[in-house]
């Protein structure tokens, strides 16, 4: 809804604006949808002038169509694939996190979602030397844990400090501050967060369901609308700035008793790739094992085995050797 204002385009002066408002045309959409000849007659302005105004406003406010070939060229030159630091998880994700998309990790309590996110952040900041924005909504992030993970990679304290500096942390606990933070990042914050030479390549929100699920349910639809707004700003940020968005989600039980990711059916269309993490308990377990299983439940690329994209991608950030993070995760099944 864009309200018509004076000076928005040449020819839209105060007098014309008054006449338009008298004819009940207050927004750009009203102007564009109404019949131009009738409006020109009512507001006593020339048809040609009104047509020119309409054309300028339309060009200013519509999304411009892009040819498929140009879009593909742009995508080839700007998409990067970020390895997560764990080879089996990478294999599940078709070689890593893709920039420009939202990837979702869901799992119950203690299933390792936050640990995976820490591992990804540490890997990107230490190995790939790029910045990471980490939005923590649960309070589960401690710098000590990140340092512990870094200490297994290197014993050089300067490198550890440099890697820690590339991880920028935001602590928020409700959806409005999350939206504020994301809008702020989108309008210039991401450039400022690029520290130490590397640009921001990943935005991790842990977890998005902690701030949204209290608002869902009941008669009011505001929760759903806020959820879609968060999704929208994450997606536009991922696309415009070529970052990979990683979010975590809780799980619920479906009607037939099986475990499924939370936040409902409307959220399920939003992430491009979804992974479900579960604990694996061996049959004769004495103590809880450190094993977790990751199942791919939605992917637009993995149809059989790792289907590769076109090999002429020139900007893949692929790693030759990958070190495992400080926990075990084994890929058990890949069902799409």
């Amino acid at each position: 809804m864009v309200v018509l204002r004076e000076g928005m385009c040449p020819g839209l002066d105060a007098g014309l604006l008054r006449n338009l408002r008298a004819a009940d045309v207050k927004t750009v959409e009203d102007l564009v949808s109404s019949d131009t000849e009738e409006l020109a007659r009512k507001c006593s302005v020339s048809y040609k002038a009104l047509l020119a105004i309409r054309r300028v406003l339309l060009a200013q406010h519509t999304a411009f169509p892009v040819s498929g070939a140009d879009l593909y060229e742009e995508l080839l030159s700007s998409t990067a694939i970020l390895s997560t630091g764990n080879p089996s998880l990478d294999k599940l994700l078709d070689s890593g996190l893709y920039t420009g998309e939202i990837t979702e990790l869901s799992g119950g309590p203690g299933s390792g979602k936050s640990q995976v996110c820490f591992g990804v952040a540490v890997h990107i900041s230490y190995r790939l030397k790029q910045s990471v924005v980490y939005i923590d909504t649960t309070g589960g992030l401690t710098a000590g844990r990140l340092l512990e993970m870094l200490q297994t990679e290197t014993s050089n304290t300067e490198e550890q400090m440099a890697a820690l500096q590339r991880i920028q942390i935001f602590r928020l606990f409700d959806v409005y501050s999350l939206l504020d933070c994301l809008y702020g990042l989108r309008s210039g914050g991401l450039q400022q967060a690029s520290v130490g030479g590397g640009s921001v390549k990943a935005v991790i929100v842990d977890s998005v369901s902690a701030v949204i699920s209290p608002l869902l349910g009941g008669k009011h639809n505001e929760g759903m609308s806020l959820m879609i707004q968060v999704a929208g700003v994450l997606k536009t940020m991922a696309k415009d700035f070529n970052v990979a968005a990683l979010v975590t989600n809780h799980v619920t039980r479906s009607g037939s008793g099986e475990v499924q990711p939370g936040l409902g059916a409307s959220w399920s269309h939003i992430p491009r790739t979804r992974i479900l993490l579960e604990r694996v308990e061996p049959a004769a377990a004495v103590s809880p094992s450190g094993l977790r299983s990751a199942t791919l439940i939605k992917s637009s690329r993995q149809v059989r085995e790792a289907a590769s994209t076109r090999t002429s991608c020139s900007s893949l950030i692929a790693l030759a050797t990958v070190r495992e993070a400080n926990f075990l995760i084994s890929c058990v099944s890949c069902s799409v």
Partner: protein
Amino acid sequence: MSLRTVPNITVLRHFAAFTMKRRGQEVSSSSRRRRGRKEDEARAEMSESGAQLFARLEGRCCLKDIEPHLFPEDGGPDHGEVVELCGTEGTGKTELLYHLLCRCVLPEAAGGLEVDVVFVDTDYSLDMLRLVSILDSRLNTALSSNSSARSEEAALRSCLSRLLVVHCSSSSQLLLTLHFLETSLSSRPSLALLLIDSISAFYWLDRCGGGASFAKQEEKLSKCAELLERLLRDYRVTVFASCHAIRRSSSGPSSSSDSYLCRPWQRLVSHRLLCSRQDPVDSVAAAVGDRGQRMQPVFTVRCTSSSCSMKSFRSSSFCVTDGGVEFIGTSSSQDSEQSR
């Protein structure tokens, strides 16, 4: 009418100038005062050229046989019809849209229709890499005889140049974009298909933004639907739109078939494709034992058309491979009105 028997374009232009008098008649008094070149310019803008008239009335490819597996016999989407694909997440709607897209932009040698397509992307769900891999594999199977790398690239590029992609971030922007697309529709007579993925992306935003009255909540989508109706009537393109289900189907796929969008949109839809997914039975997969031979999930599509008087539906199933959608079986049933 074959495009080769195009009438003389100057004849059409004169015809257009005579018949398109609707704007010329209502010239306001202020423009009557301007004489000479300005009046000619105004008249040229008010009337449409012969090419635009031609594009408007004729020349759009008919997409009735775009996918015979999906639609009942002879019941494919005609000019000016809207097909809605509904289903929950992961039921193959986007894959079906890619399949239809590829069928339209591929050259005739590869089994395509060679028409232009506009893809309106409302929730950033277009995965160009996946689309290109489908196009690639289809071109490879079709043109495998004389394939050099450069000719393959050229073929791929020509296919992609028939595709126009628009991203919209709100329903007001969708409305404005549809107005803007009118100029593209009038200037490209080879544009025959409009894909919208998805039409329900702004549902919750509109519901919350409209306050307490349902009319205000549905206002924007109603305006889009009315505009689409006019565009379909004037330009005779075909529209395929995907609509995400918002409730998890606890009682089978039929419960998720209730449309929750506004009435003007529901009136516009002439065919509905209900998508669902059947996961392979676990015991069978375990019996096979070999992890490399996992059973593929099978997707089913059920098509109901409200346009034909005999209510007939057609059910088909497909699975998704590297080369896109592959149909495995179809079944159709005719329920005549007497049985009701």
